[in-house]
């Protein structure tokens, strides 16, 4: 069979190398090559969407396991199931959109696009890798381009934001490294194979000690919590988002944040299920805190982009609440919320980028009455805002409701408090809309050019998906449902066995 996943992962890398070899002056060619490098993976994603077996819980499009480093039983092993398929599709889409959104870059164009494509390779790799070591390598490979992309092409405080992002993430990943090694040494036959690890569970050596298992769980959790970000670990996010160039913010919010939740679902849940149950209450509580705290912070922001950044913190809280419930609804909701947040927040960041390119600032209070001078822009923004605040008929609503349905079964109090987050979200979104687009027209921005065709092109596919999933959720849910139901049953069964 054609190795779709490796193809998607490494085709952008070929593009990155090709760009590095192009002459510096040909910036247009560089951009075109970058765009072309993201298109075949997108085509492959469409093909995967059409052929993915929605009824199967097994890994699909499997490649390997091929031996990579025999001395350490490290394998090259790729595959996707219902959990990762939506993420792979999202990554393919966001990759193309981010290249289009970067068309305005004029500083060190070559470097920018090669790093961007390297980043895309890392993202595909993380979602497709089924070998823990391979997963770790892709996870870390993503850090390097991200550091440079924020640090070189970012805003005024870019250096601070870049190093903060790097340090936080590395702190998390070294903990993951230790747990990964512990998994390896105390598994049957010493393996990094994630599927195999989930199958055996770990009970040898120190894993017989529940405290050790809990420590391992926490090590992994901190690593992923930094990425999500879960509230005490979230402070890198507003900085990174605000300083990053538009396209990088889009990638950061739409794909990188998802890796945290993905990691918990891919590694913590199946390999340490009892400990996950043990911490379910904490997960749900953290979810609630994320939702409410993130929303309150967003409400207090004066910077448009920072507001969107905090809204991401809030929205990722829904995922935590949903997945903590261990019900099929909750797990489906969490994964769907990941996908929906990816598409919606990408629109929001793109839209902030549009206004920033024109006005060169993002002070919410500095605008006013933009709906008059840029009516089309106002329409697109209102669509994205409504999607973000969970308007029925748009995709955000579906996944939030699923998360709440799942959460309510298990954690009634947390869910009740969390629902207030929906109200808060509506409040800050509408209030922002009012301040930016309605009211007194700011004379300074009267002549701002309307949103351009290229900008609209980046928004249209995302908007279509938002609408489609909102009206007909089965479209996306079918992809995940089988796997998520199986995961909730798996954890339940382990729970019963453990008790």
């Amino acid at each position, binding site marked *: 069979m054609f190795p779709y996943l490796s193809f998607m992962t490494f085709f952008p890398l070929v593009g990155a190398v090709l760009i590095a070899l192009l002459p510096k002056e040909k910036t247009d060619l560089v951009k075109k090559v970058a765009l072309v490098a993201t298109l075949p993976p997108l085509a492959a994603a469409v093909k995967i969407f059409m052929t993915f077996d929605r009824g199967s819980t097994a890994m699909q499009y499997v490649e390997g396991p091929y031996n990579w480093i025999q001395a350490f039983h490290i394998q090259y092993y790729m595959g996707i199931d219902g959990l990762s398929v939506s993420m792979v599709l999202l990554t393919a889409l966001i990759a193309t959109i981010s290249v289009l959104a970067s068309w305005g870059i004029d500083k060190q164009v070559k470097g920018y696009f090669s790093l961007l494509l390297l980043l895309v390779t890392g993202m595909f790799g993380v979602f497709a890798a089924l070998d823990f070591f391979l997963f770790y390598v892709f996870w*870390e490979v993503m850090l*390097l381009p991200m550091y440079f992309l924020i640090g070189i092409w970012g805003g005024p405080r870019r250096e601070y934001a870049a190093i903060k992002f790097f*340090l936080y993430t*590395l702190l998390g990943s070294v903990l993951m*490294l230790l747990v990964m090694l512990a998994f390896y*040494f105390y598994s049957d036959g010493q393996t990094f194979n994630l599927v195999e690890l989930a199958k055996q569970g770990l009970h040898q050596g120190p894993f017989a000690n529940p405290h050790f298992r809990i420590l391992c769980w926490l090590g992994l959790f901190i690593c992923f919590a930094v990425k999500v970000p879960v509230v005490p670990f979230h402070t890198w996010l507003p900085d990174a988002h605000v300083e990053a160039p538009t396209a990088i913010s889009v990638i950061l919010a739409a794909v990188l944040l998802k890796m945290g939740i993905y990691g918990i679902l891919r590694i913590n849940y199946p390999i340490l299920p009892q400990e996950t149950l043990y911490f379910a209450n904490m997960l749900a509580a953290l979810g609630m805190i994320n939702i409410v705290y993130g929303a309150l912070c967003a409400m207090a922001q004066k910077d448009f982009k920072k507001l969107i950044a905090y809204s991401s913190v809030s929205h990722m809280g829904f995922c935590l609440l949903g997945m903590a419930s261990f019900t099929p609804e909750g797990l489906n909701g969490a994964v769907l919320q990941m996908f929906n947040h990816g598409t919606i927040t990408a629109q929001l960041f793109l839209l902030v980028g549009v206004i920033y390119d024109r006005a060169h600032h993002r002070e919410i209070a500095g605008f006013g009455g933009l709906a008059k001078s840029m009516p089309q822009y106002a329409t697109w923004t209102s669509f994205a805002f409504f999607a973000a605040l969970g308007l029925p008929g748009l995709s955000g609503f579906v996944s939030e409701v699923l998360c709440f349905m799942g959460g309510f079964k298990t954690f009634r109090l947390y869910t009740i408090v969390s629902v207030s987050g929906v109200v808060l979200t509506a409040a800050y979104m509408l209030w922002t809309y009012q301040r930016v687009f309605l009211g007194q027209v700011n004379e300074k921005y009267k002549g701002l050019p309307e949103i351009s065709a290229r900008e609209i092109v980046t928004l249209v596919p995302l908007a279509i998906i938002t609408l489609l999933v909102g009206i007909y959720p089965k479209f996306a849910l079918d992809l995940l449902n089988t796997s998520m139901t199986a995961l909730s049953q798996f954890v339940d069964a382990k729970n019963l066995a453990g008790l």
Partner: protein
Amino acid sequence: MKQDLLYFLPELVLIGTILLLIVTDFVAGTRAKAVFPFFAFVGIAGMMGAVAATFYLAPTTFFTGMVSVDDIGRFFKIIFGVSGLLGILLSVKSAEVEKADQASYYTLLTALVLGMMLLGSANHLLMLYLALEMVSVLSYILTGSLRGVRRSSEAALKYVIYGGVASGIMAYGLSLLYGMTGTMAFPEIAAFLKANAVSRPALFVSVLLVFGGIGFKIASFPFHMWCPDVYEGAPTPFTAFLSVGPKAAGFAALIRFFLVGLTTPGQDVLAGTFLAVKPVGLVEMLTVLSIATMTIGNLAALVQNNLKRLLAYSSIAHAGYLLMGFAALSQEALTAVLFYLVVYVIMNVGAFLVVLVVSNQMGVEDMAGYKGLGRRGGRGTYLALVMTVFMFSLTGIPPMAGFIGKFYLFGAVLKAGLYGLAIAGVLNSVVSLYYYVRVVKVMFFDAPDDARDIAIPAVSQSWILAGLAGLTLYLGLFWNGLATVTERSTGLYASAYAPPVAVAAPAAPEAAAPAAAPENK
């Protein structure tokens, strides 16, 4: 005796080279400048050839048990040879070394490699001490080889003073050990410790004091203070060599001292129980030293502005990481240490080569010289890119080889159950990211002060850089071959030292194989 000289062939090749260099100096004098590095290079390469040629010889000890020859020793000889070759290559086009006396510089450098080889093969306390002194004294001289440069002389003086103290401490420790056990040969010390009860505090103190001497060589806490000053003052090519060669030699001596001198050999020496030394807290001692070394190195590096000092503190931190492997005291840990040393040689020499080129061109070793290096285009960008590879590799980020080295070390530490040490190690890696990345930041995020292009003085240097950076990346992705080599080196080592006592034991069938066990006591 004839057989002994055959075992000694690699060392003999170097001794011949040294004599040749001295004679050439007499005959040709300063007229034939270029010939000295050439002879030294060929001599060291010939030494490595001799190691390969005598590879078939079974592991044994010779010269009445003073020196040993085995796979781990050969492994180290190759490491020393490679760092010696790199040291010569770096020195050839260096503006600093030009000022030094060519004949003596290359002669001493070759002699230093010889000293390191003896240190790595020492099987006897006396040999250990003599070889250590040989390495130290030659290092002092080479550090001060820039005549008339104050910084260089000052560094040499500091080095001598610290070195003198450390060597005195070590000699005292050796005398205690001899007094307790009545022997100076490593295997006999171990056998004595196994058979007889000795005062535990005395054993602990003597081991600690001996560690002092070796710790000075590897720049481990609390004997690390000389390191930044010496690294800064010494000519950069020699600093590059000093940071990898003598350090590796120190680790080779440490391996032998701990694992042959203090281990009670069992069926598997390395997985052995360390019965004699475990109760005296060897593991605890090494754990504390390792954590202290890496923490001090990393914290001090955070505030450095001079690249050579920064790399000096970084090399202290790396000594701390390597000591983790000793705290774990296992076969895996030993393999990890060897693996890490190879990777460390590659990435550290690479980083120093960039420092060398930049200081030659910009005239400074400070961060200021690196400002906007990556934005100068052409060779500047090239230098900045390879430097980035080395910096990230030193941090331990995949897909660079430095990550694999740490991966092995942490794995061994975890397997030994030293969870606290492992956590201290990874947290230190995170701290180290900050200063390594600062170099990268200055090179790429800051704009250069002027628009001039930077030149790499020799084509060969850009090829060496490409080779080292390429290896760093290659070994980060495909390290199976190196892993096999390191594993084999440590595996055979285990059986070579099974003493005659163990041969009689029924439970040791493998131990009977090496009939070449020390007969010449």
